């Protein structure tokens, strides 16, 4: 087990009330495993990624434990965390255009990470940066390293982000919507690349795009309104989904018949009583309105949060 998250809560207090973005989540990732975290806008999936890397504002309330290789990430100092970030856990963010520094050459941006984390001198770091650009299949890397982000296309920028994430050889990668905003043919290039470079690494892939998850993940967890509702091996999620939300999500895809889930996701400030999905669920029973279901293991390694599963 490389990462073990238990009873994690991330709450923000706002003038409108308490936002329970991540609400009691248990999730673990094994060595060399890719876990997909799937959910729709505002379900809390990005916040979970930011909580693991401790990139949230200090005013946020975080409870529970995040054990990374025996260290509780929530207990260590900021200095120690800074070493783990990049060195051990790397984050590939969505929207590479705003994640790269527009006035700094691409090679230097990667070299900076290498210098800070691995203590290489300027020249060696620059050489390693070029090597990294080559490893993400950027043509003529030594020339491209001297260019600025605006000279790169969207797909190429995403490759740079991946190179930067991999620069210090981390064991765990958290990729947040790594293919968002890319054209379909470029998207398949990035999926192929991620598949190759993460073979020896563990990855948490955060996305709303099931086709990306299907191509990359060993296990998939579905998140709805701040909590996990189903977690199972990827094949089982697609072939035998058990939670009504998972079924609805799959059914609303154009290729599966375009059957929408009625209504919309609840606000994280004002969550429904009982099961959080019951107002949109076709099979909701009396108990669903009263009692909040727990995660139950219905088959080996297949967890569902539903009274009916």
């Amino acid at each position: 087990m490389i990462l073990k998250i238990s009873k994690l809560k991330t709450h923000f207090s706002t003038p409108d009330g308490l936002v329970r973005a991540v609400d009691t989540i248990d999730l673990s990732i094994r060595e060399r495993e890719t876990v997909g975290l799937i959910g729709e806008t505002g379900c809390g999936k990005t916040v979970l990624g930011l909580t693991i890397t401790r990139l949230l504002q200090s005013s946020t309330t975080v409870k529970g434990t995040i054990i990374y290789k025996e260290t509780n990430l929530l207990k260590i100092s900021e200095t120690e965390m800074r070493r783990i970030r990049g060195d051990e856990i790397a984050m590939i963010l969505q929207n590479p255009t705003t994640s790269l520094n527009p006035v700094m050459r691409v090679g230097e941006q990667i070299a900076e990470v290498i210098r800070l984390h691995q203590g290489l001198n300027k020249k060696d770091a620059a050489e390693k940066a070029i090597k990294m650009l080559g490893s993400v299949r950027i043509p003529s890397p030594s020339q491209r390293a001297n260019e600025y982000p605006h000279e790169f296309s969207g797909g190429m920028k995403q490759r740079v982000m991946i190179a930067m994430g991999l620069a210090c050889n981390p064991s765990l990668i958290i990729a947040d919507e790594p293919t968002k905003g890319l054209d379909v043919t470029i998207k398949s290039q990035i999926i192929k690349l991620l598949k190759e470079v993460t073979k020896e690494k563990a990855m948490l892939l955060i996305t709303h795009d099931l086709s990306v998850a299907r191509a990359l993940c060993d296990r998939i967890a579905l998140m709805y309104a701040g909590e996990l509702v189903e977690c199972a091996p990827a094949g089982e999620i697609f072939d035998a989904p058990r939670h009504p939300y998972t079924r609805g999500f799959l059914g609303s895809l154009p290729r599966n018949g375009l059957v929408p889930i009625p209504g919309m996701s609840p606000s994280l400030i004002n969550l429904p009583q009982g099961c959080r999905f019951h107002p949109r669920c076709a099979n909701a029973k009396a108990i669903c309105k009263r009692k909040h279901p727990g995660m139950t293991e219905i088959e080996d390694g297949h967890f569902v949060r539903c009274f009916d599963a």
Partner: protein
Amino acid sequence: MLEVTELTKYFSSGLIRKQYQRAVDGVSFTIKNGETLGLVGESGCGKTTVGRLILRLTKPTDGTVLFDGIDLFALNRRELLAIRPRIQMIFQDPDSSLNPRMKIGTSIAEPLKLHGTIPEVKRKQRIKELIETVGLNPEHINRYPYQLSGGQNQRVVLARILALNPDLIIADEPTSSLDVSVQAQILNLMRDLQKEFNHTYLFISHDLDVVRIMADRIAVMYLGRLIEIGETRDIYDHAKHPYTQALLSAAAVDGKTEQNVLEGETSSPLDTPTGCRFNTRCPYREEICAIKEPELVEVGRDHYVACHIA
């Protein structure tokens, strides 16, 4: 209904050494009454420009567009304004298509007021009808766009469009900013409205899965050129152009089948390759492809492809 012939738009840039960006280059297609034509392609292929040209939101370089027999490019300002209600456009981002400081009801009243189709006394009643047609509640009339979700705002946009009773609706990626479960709601609504009001759609999208269920026929664009057009089933089952095949393969990710991943990226429209524009990325490239630009050729019933090899 709509007949587009040799539609061309070059954008020029540079003062001394002028460069021309051939955004749309000799595109021709027709859409029949009540039909949906899906216009597919990746970013920068010119699909949005085609939509804007038909609406005359940008000036064409060349070509003609006949709408119900009327030459849209020959109309003067007044005539154009008179015909606009019949051709409407839905944009990508519903939140920025609505005035943030206008209540939903006022937003929907705006087109009714401008085109004076309905007397003022009946306007309130009509707004209520429209709101209900698109599946919102009358209580939404007094809200602001920021109080609604993206999906609800896209419904408001649809209500505004319906207010004018259009014949042709140009939908430019209407659901690309929405979650899948909400996307399904909006697409279903658009299909129901089409059936009810006999709308003709030009449905512009990069999402092949969405186009497949929305469109009767599909046109594929690459770097300003139309490279394949045909009935939806023919395109999906018997795509002839290597680019269409690659697009379909890229969309069909299931983790099992080996994908046909295209190398390289789309060339810049400022510097389009000679010959077939796709030849730099094409896995089946032959000598002629770099020399001669292929024309659209009929390869089946109503199925046209621009490729030397297909």
